[in-house]
């Protein structure tokens, strides 16, 4: 056996070993995705072309009737399509100054502590925290304090304002972190250069800082918006269940009227809409930030 063949052989076996290793490393994650993402999705797709059994649940069929019936939940879709971007925008307006301060203004030694403070509330269930807001905004909470100073019978709970507050409170860290990350990587010399070249602080902010942090903004925005597309807890608890979102429609269809096929059709449509929103956000942010590729988590 010549030395050359031996080297080629060992190279080939290296490649093989490498491929095997890659397969082994990817295996668990792939299996996880197939079992917990792909299979359930296929099941829902199959349900969505089925029929509701007389007592509720699913009965095999092939019909597009469930999709034809989607207009029956048009209001829910509309409400969701308004809530999701509006909530994400409100979150953004609150989050940006915080992220800006953390990344560019906060003293180095405080930064980690402040970041931890942003994240710590997340270690308690969103459910518990939203329930807590019910009591803060409810009659024995802030309205009772207002009554002391003469403002009687103020109602805060079950108003659109309460829902907005709950959303901003609940999702704020998700918006702060990606913006912080993109601002933190900002090359400060660009700010100096901009100032040296005669730009006002405002135009430096708009032309340099904001522009370079857009990937973070879009990541945070998409993240919050996608979670809001499926939101039902906050509107139910803080809005009194008076405004109907897709999340509420799904809960009712699966747990009350047990119309699984219709619920599945709505779920598939919601996923499709989310994908479109994601792609659009990606496209916009790529264009705005000067053709830099943007990764949405």
């Amino acid at each position: 056996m010549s030395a050359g063949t031996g080297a080629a052989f060992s190279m080939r076996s290296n490649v093989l070993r490498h491929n095997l290793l890659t397969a082994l490393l990817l295996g668990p994650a792939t299996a996880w995705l197939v079992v917990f993402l792909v299979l359930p999705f296929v099941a829902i797709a199959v349900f969505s072309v089925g029929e509701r059994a007389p007592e509720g649940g699913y009965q095999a069929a092939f019909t597009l009737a469930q999709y034809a019936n989607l207009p029956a939940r048009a209001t829910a879709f509309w409400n969701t399509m308004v809530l999701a971007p509006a909530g994400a925008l409100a979150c953004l307006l609150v989050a940006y100054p915080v992220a800006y301060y953390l990344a560019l203004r906060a003293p180095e030694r405080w930064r980690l502590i402040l970041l931890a403070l942003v994240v710590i509330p997340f270690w308690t269930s969103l459910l518990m925290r939203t329930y807590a807001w019910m009591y803060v905004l409810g009659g024995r909470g802030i309205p009772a304090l207002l009554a002391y100073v003469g403002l009687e019978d103020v109602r805060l709970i079950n108003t659109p304002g309460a829902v907005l507050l709950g959303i901003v409170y609940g999702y704020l860290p998700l918006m702060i972190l990606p913006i912080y990350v993109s601002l933190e990587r900002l090359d400060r010399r660009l700010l100096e250069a901009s100032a040296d070249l005669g730009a006002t602080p405002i135009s430096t902010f708009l032309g340099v800082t904001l522009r370079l942090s857009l990937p973070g903004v879009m990541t945070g925005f998409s993240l919050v918006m996608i979670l809001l597309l499926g939101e039902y807890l906050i509107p139910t608890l803080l809005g009194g269940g008076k405004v109907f979102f897709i999340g509420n429609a799904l809960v009712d269809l699966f747990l009350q009227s047990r119309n699984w096929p219709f619920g599945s059709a709505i779920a598939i449509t919601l996923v499709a809409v989310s994908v479109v929103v994601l792609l659009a956000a990606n496209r916009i942010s790529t264009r705005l930030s000067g053709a830099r590729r943007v990764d949405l988590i």
Partner: protein
Amino acid sequence: MSKSYRDGLPISPEKFIDQLMRLKRGSIGRREFLGLTGLGIATAVMARELGIMPSPAFAQEGLGDRMSIATWPNYHDPATFENFKAETGVAVEVNVFGSNEEMLAKLQAGASGWSLFVPTNYTISTYKKLGIIEALDMAKLANYDGSQEDPRFTGEGTIDGVTYAVPKNWGTTGFAVNTKKLTKPMTSWKEFWDTAMAEGDGRTMVHDYQLTTIGNALKYFGFSFNSLKPDELAKAEELLLKVKPHLFAVSSDYQPSMRAGDAWMTMCWTNDGAQLHRDIPEIAYVLGKEGGEIWTDFYAIPKDAPNKPAGYALLNYLMNPKVAVKEHLANGAPSTDARVNALLPKEVLDNPILYPAADLLKPLEFGAAATLTDPGRAELMARFKSA
């Protein structure tokens, strides 16, 4: 200089999302809340620990050492299961649920693992039709005495002369009013709905449940609580849409809002009414004179129960009036069993919220299976909620 953006972060974005999603699934143990979030079906929250394994010598012959029951939160005296374990060696695992629909879904999927469960009257015929509950072997329920039961309550558990379920307790669906805020006395559903649009504007709650919300809107016009007639449902829908902008909330979790004084009036089940009145005397419980709902929760045994002997043993134990009376004192619902009523303290029997006057009970209707599963009513409810 390459610096990873993760260096300064206390937690990675991926971990962060994992954490968030995990936390989003957290739970609170209220019946309404479980229903609201659908967590019951996803997790079948364990209300109790299984406890230490009893020694085999201690366990009664053939009963095994453990079983599980599906029921509602805060519906039993915890001591009942402790005592049962002490007597028989069988540890009882309690699964609590938010709605009958979740229980049904879990049983229909098979292998629920329950040997006893607590369905409400209107689901029993559906369970029977689907063939997932056992025709009860009454010989194994020596403590049950049908002659001591009010036949109005046993009827829903018996189909074609075969007993599929025996009653646990009963109750009604009326409304609770804060009489300090709404001083005009009310006695009817008509007044409930009219007040919601007048003095009770912005302070009234209705259930997030089509059976009762649509049913009680039908009572405004004197129609049947269970009506499926399109013209009658159309009138109920018209009323509901008119009332909607005046409501404080559409929610079955009304106790916090009533207690805090945010809501002044709400549709209300017996147990909640009794608890609210006990703690806040100015909250009254009213049964509409036009009628409305009367309900019974039953005990039944699934066909695929993994430990039927223990299921029967526990059911028989619960049918012992001395045990049952403690259950009723713990959860506050009225009993169907004359032997239990004889043991209950006078102030419980005299409580008009728990044991209303006969003439108020007369027009009440049991919710029907068809009412609950009707797609038309489900769509009406969706239109009401999205209006």
